Structure formats: structure tokens, C-alpha cells
């Protein structure tokens, strides 16, 4: 399955056939894999459009639908599938009874009620396809979505500025300057990626708590740490900066440009894809963030961000359809952002030094 570069010797028909079959099989396999891999997503959309009562009926269809009803003298009657001697009929239940019930034939609503012997509870209702937006209305009633969105975007923007400025500066420092022992400093940077968060959790929480800084219930614990740069983002940026030829820096240096000037006008213009990737990674990180929010924003509902806010409302209002709406709403924006930015995203995520 490795790179096939046999295009040169496609002289015989047999080989062409094999080549075509191989290509078709490979693409079919990838297609089937993606269908299986993403199959839970359509179910989520279906569930969020499904009326709540439908989940109570085990015989209800999969797609969002509602029961067919007959308006009979100002009353809504539910239409059932009634087995009769002449085959199955769709009749509306008029007077339910224990042993026999009266039905109205929708084709002939003015006729006499038909008496049918049997237990009406065993009958299956007739459904017609009809998606509902009720769940979305319920969801918007439960959560303060505009507030959560506003908070998330504010925190993401502020911390994005901090994390980008400092990570770019640090990555530039690592990639372009001869500093004694920089190899060891870089090793420490890589090591910090592997430090589990719970080892620093207790002292950091104590630092931010009322005993010292009193930052609990503010955004500061979520924003300020990002202004010191993020190790993994520095790592990705540095890999890319190092692959930019130094000739350009040196030319700029001869023209009298200082280090900051070189960074802004030589390095950054050539690093648009990687900077976009890093910015997006940070945005996704903030969007997904629930760990820090649960520690520091649990007591202040007006400052909460989207993932944590929706997660909290989900624990209070536990109905499956509304939960599905929440799941859909919370994932839709990162997914759309990723799809829009796919041209840039993760183009240069090379962690080795093997260059082509």
C-alpha cells in the first residue's frame, strides 16, 4: 500500500485492470471506514429533531415523526393500525375499551363508529415524518446560550493574543539564537509537555484561591497562564521556524533589521499555515475546556464558557433529545471552523527533522 509509482509501466491491459481495482478497493475502504467512523453523528441530528413523546413508544419509527391524528368534532383522535378481516386499516381511536373499542374511519368521518374487538393498547400508532424544533426551543430556554458564546469568544480572544505572542517569541528564540545550553532548555520544554496537570493542580489552586491571589470566580486563572506560552505550540512553531532558510534573516540583518523586525517581517509571513494551525488548536482547546472552568468558575454562572455551561445544564435537565441538541450546539462551531480552515490546518505538523 506504499506510494505506488508504477505509472511508467502501465503498458499491459492486465496491469491497468489491477491498478484500477486496487485504486477502487482502497477508496472504497476509506469511504466505508469514514461512514462507520462518523456514523454516530447522523443519529445525533436525528435525535435532536425528534419529538419527546416518540421516545416513549417502542414501536415508533427511527426518523423524527409525529402521530397521525384525526380531528373529529373538535377532538384529536390518534390513528392506529388496526388488523381486520379485510387486512390492516388505519382507523382513529374514538372510544377505547378494555375488550373492544370504537374507531372512526378517517375516509368516512361522518359514518357510524366501528366496533373492533381486541386490546387497543397492543395496536401500533401510525406515524408520519415530521421533524420538530421543540427541542431547540427547550434547550435555549434552559441554557443562556448567547452569554456562554460571548464568554467563550472573549476568553478565547484574550488568551489567543497572549498565547500567540509569547509562543511565537519563544519559538523564535529557540530556533534562531545560539544560547549556551539551549539544548537542555529545550529538553525541559519537551519534558513539561509530559507533566500531568494534577501534579501542579493543588499548589496552583491554592495560589489562585482566596488565601493568596483570590482569582476564583474570575477569568484570570483561565487566561493568565496562557500569556507564558504553551509548550506544545512552541514546539510546533519552532519546528516550522527552523525549516525557514536563514539566508533571508541574514540578508535582513545586513540591511540593519533587528531581531524583532526579522521575526515580524521575515519569519512570520512565511509561517502563515503553522500560525493558523496553532491559533486554531488553541481555540479548540479553549472551546473544549472544562477542567479549569469546573475548578475556578463553578460558583459564577455568568462567567462560564460553553462546554462547561452546557455540561452543567445537561446534568440538571436530563431528557435525551435536549441533551442531543446541547451536544450538537456545542460541537457545531469547532467543526465548522475546522472545515473552513482545512486548507491551512495541520499542514506542517512535522516532529522529525527529516525534510523532503
Amino acid at each position, binding site marked *: 500500500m506504499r506510494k505506488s509509482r508504477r505509472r511508467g509501466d502501465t503498458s499491459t491491459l492486465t496491469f491497468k485492470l489491477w491498478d484500477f481495482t486496487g485504486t477502487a478497493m482502497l477508496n472504497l475502504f476509506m469511504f466505508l471506514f469514514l461512514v462507520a467512523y462518523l456514523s454516530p453523528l447522523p443519529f445525533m441530528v436525528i435525535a435532536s429533531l425528534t419529538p419527546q413523546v416518540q421516545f416513549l413508544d417502542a414501536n415508533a419509527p427511527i426518523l423524527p415523526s409525529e402521530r397521525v391524528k384525526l380531528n373529529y368534532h373538535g377532538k384529536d383522535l390518534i390513528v392506529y393500525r388496526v388488523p381486520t378481516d379485510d387486512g390492516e386499516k388505519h382507523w382513529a381511536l374514538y372510544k377505547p375499551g378494555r375488550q373492544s373499542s370504537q374507531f372512526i374511519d378517517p375516509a368516512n368521518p361522518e359514518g357510524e363508529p366501528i366496533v373492533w374487538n381486541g386490546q387497543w393498547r397492543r395496536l401500533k400508532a401510525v406515524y408520519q415524518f415530521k421533524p420538530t424544533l421543540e427541542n431547540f426551543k427547550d434547550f435555549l430556554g434552559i441554557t443562556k446560550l448567547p452569554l456562554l458564546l460571548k464568554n467563550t469568544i472573549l476568553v478565547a480572544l484574550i488568551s489567543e493574543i497572549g498565547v500567540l505572542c509569547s509562543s511565537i517569541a*519563544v519559538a523564535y528564540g529557540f530556533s534562531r539564537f545560539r*544560547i549556551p545550553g539551549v539544548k537542555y532548555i529545550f529538553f525541559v520544554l519537551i519534558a513539561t509537555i*509530559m507533566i500531568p496537570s494534577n501534579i501542579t493542580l493543588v499548589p496552583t489552586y*491554592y495560589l489562585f484561591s482566596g488565601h493568596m491571589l483570590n482569582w476564583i470566580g474570575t477569568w484570570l486563572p483561565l487566561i493568565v497562564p496562557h500569556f507564558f506560552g504553551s509548550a506544545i505550540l512552541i514546539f510546533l512553531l519552532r519546528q516550522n521556524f527552523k525549516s525557514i532558510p536563514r539566508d533571508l534573516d*541574514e540578508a535582513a540583518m545586513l540591511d540593519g533589521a533587528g531581531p524583532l523586525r526579522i521575526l515580524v517581517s521575515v519569519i512570520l509571513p512565511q509561517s502563515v499555515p503553522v500560525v493558523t494551525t496553532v491559533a486554531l488548536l488553541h481555540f479548540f*482547546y479553549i472551546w473544549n475546556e472544562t477542567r479549569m472552568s469546573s475548578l475556578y468558575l463553578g460558583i459564577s454562572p455568568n462567567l462560564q464558557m460553553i462546554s462547561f455551561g452546557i455540561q452543567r445544564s445537561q446534568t440538571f435537565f436530563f431528557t435525551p433529545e435536549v441533551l442531543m441538541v446541547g451536544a450538537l450546539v456545542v460541537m457545531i462551531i469547532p467543526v465548522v471552523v475546522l*472545515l473552513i480552515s*482545512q486548507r491551512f490546518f495541520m499542514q506542517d505538523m512535522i516532529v522529525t527533522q527529516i525534510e523532503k
Partner: protein
Amino acid sequence: MDVAKQSGVLIKSKPVRSSRLRQEARTGLLFLSPWLIGFVLLKALPILAALIFSVTDFQMLTPEKTQFIGLENYAHFFKDAIAGASLFGSLGYFLLTVPLEMIVALALAAIFTSARLKNKRISRTLIFMTSIIPSTSIFFIFVGSLQYADRLFFTPLNLPPIQGFGLLLPFMALWSIGPGFLIIYSAMESVPDEVYEAARVDGAGPFARFIFITLPMISPAIFFTLVVNLTGAFGGAVLLDRGYILSFSLSPMESYINDVMFTQSDLGYASALAWITFGVMMTITVILFRSARNWVYFPEEDENAEI
């Protein structure tokens, strides 16, 4: 190669006055300073502080009554069945999900390097997409699609319904392969074509080429992915915050530490537990690094050699 060129430049510019070198080092350190300060304030000092907390009976509400109690917290760990179970749970989570993630990511990346595959960009985005879905959503997507799977396949076929959340972990693992997949795929793409051509001339088939060329050449990427996954399994947010679902974490050890910290507000014991986890994780990492010498291929003995 670029690296060779870069070090060439370095060697050529070496005979400069030492004061200029010192100036360069100073400017460089200035650029590094945001991270250096952050490292000291938010990593090094808290880790040390946690070590100090772990030998005291530090309580969140009464910090002034704190006393030195020696290794009592660590001794308590060995009597604490829940803590032991949580630690083994985290280890089990690592052993269960990480191989699955690695193998699937590797297989997908190998398929992706084939020139025959069409629409690579959108497939790549779709594979990565599941990794940015918030964990808040994943749980409900999983539970919801289980219900539908029951109704569509299991009930009509008279199979028993799927019980419990045993499948949640593999499901989460498969939906988190995005970063690892992209890292491995980029590494595979950057293996020089000449190496494959040479192997082909020597008569190596596709399978042999994969085992003897691709795998050794991308071993740094595999190693990096492995370490990132290890951190995730023990409760860290490396690239994306995964793990917290409805206030309990997927990493059992992490949720137990949170419980000790906030429910029992015993910061001393929580710190000791964190240090024990840290120790276990560092042991695994050191073993991985030791073994890395045997299986990870480091391309250049460069001054800034990777990882």
C-alpha cells in the same frame, strides 16, 4: 538537506567576537523569557510546593494548622484501596486505549500515503474532526447512538442490548486519534523518496518497505505520539482537553485526586497522590526513553536533536 545547510552556516559564522555571541545569547534569552518565567512560576515551583505539601497534613480550610507529618501520606496510600484501584485503572486505561489509538492512526496514515487515494484533504479533515468534538458532546453522542444501534440492529436480530459503558473507552480513543494520525502522516510524507526507490531496486516489496523503511524512519513521530498519549491517560490536556465527562474524569486517578482535594479538602494527601502518579508516569516515560535508543531513529547528531 536543510539541516546540513543550517549547521554549515553556523560553522561559517563561528569566528566572531565573543561579545557578539554574548549579545546574541542575551537577545535569545529575552525571547525565551515568557516561557522561562511561566515554567518557574507555573510548573517548577508548584511541583516543588506539591512535594512539600505531600509531607504535611495541609487542609484547605485551615492552612495555619499545617504540621509536618513525614511520609504518613505516602504510607496511607498503601492502605487506601480506592487509590490503588484508581492508579491501576489509569494504567489499564493507558494499556487499553493507547495501543488501539496508535495502531489505527498508523494504519490510516499508511493508507493515506498511497497516491491512489482520492480526496485526501477532506478525508483527513473528517478524521481529525472527531478529535475536536467536546467531551461534553461525545458522551451523549455515544449513549444516543447506542440506543439507535439497539433499535436498528440488535432488537431486529434478537440480540441482547449493549450493556453499560464498556465500549465508551474504545469509542473515545478512536475519536481522539486526530493529532496522532496527523503527526504520523506528516512524518510518513517526509520520508525521502530516494530511500524507497533504492529499496525497490533491491527487490523489497511494499510490506518489507513498510516494516524496514517507513517504520524506522517515522519512529520519532511514533515515539512522540506515544508520549503524548501517555500524558493524556494520566490526566493531562496536551493538545485538546479530553477526559472530563459530567464531573468525573476518564482518568480514574485524576478524578480520585480531585475528590480528595475538593470533597475531603485534604491537600496534603492529594499532593502525595499526585506525586505518586507523577512518579509512575515518569518511570514509564524513562523506560520509554531508555528503550527509545534501541528503536527510535535519530536522523542527525545535530546540536538541537529532537526529543
